[in-house]
């Protein structure tokens, strides 16, 4: 599975859950949001986005529903579930711990 450009392996789901937390978003908007929030540093390829979304659906972290976008198109929006909130917290903690550990190593003498 091709990984998103610049996105560390395994953190895509974390980012997706985080960007849909405030409000439901459709696939294209999720990719856009991640790119904008990271100032174009991170881009999500569709090849990684859709498998990741399906994984989140399969695990019950997200729920999908058809809605009409602000431009009037039919889109499938993803909403975070209670289980997804928990997963988000857990993954965020994991990520933080690993990032701190790596930083400690890099700053060691």
């Amino acid at each position: 599975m091709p990984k998103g450009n610049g996105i560390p392996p395994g953190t895509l789901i974390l980012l997706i859950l985080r960007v849909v937390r405030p409000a439901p978003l459709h696939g294209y908007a999720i990719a856009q949001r991640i790119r904008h929030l990271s100032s174009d540093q991170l881009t999500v390829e569709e090849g990684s986005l859709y498998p990741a979304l399906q994984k989140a659906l399969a695990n019950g972290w997200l729920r999908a529903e058809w809605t009409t976008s602000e431009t009037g198109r039919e889109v499938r929006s993803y909403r975070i579930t209670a289980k997804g909130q928990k997963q988000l917290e857990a993954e965020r903690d994991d990520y933080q711990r690993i990032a701190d550990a790596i930083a400690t190593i890099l700053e060691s003498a």
Partner: protein
Amino acid sequence: MNTWFRRVWHLLNRRRHERELEREMREHRAAMHDPSTFGDTHRLIEQSRDAWGWNWLDDALQDLIVGVRTLLKSPSFAITATLMLTFGIGLNVTLFQMARVGILRPPAIKNADSWVRLLRAAPNSTTSTVPYPLT
């Protein structure tokens, strides 16, 4: 709704789910400035299918179909194989059944403890043929 239930539900409605996913990807592609960077829809749908964890079932079904077609293509092989399997399994079952009756199963007798064996012993001979009265 637990994860297993969701997975089974997805499997049962897979055709509809995948049509929805295809439609979703079509909309996504339409929204892009450069739709050519969107990957191949069918490849993406297959990769998305992996997420639900039913690959083993698809593989097993495919293997089964290939097996059946191979057997249909060469009936003589199919018949030989079936006969050999039949004979092998039948022989095994028969022998085991005999061993079970003869060795493994306790004899079908009421109050086995009350049985006695009568022997008649003389200084230079022993015999188990002992006449006894039937009451």
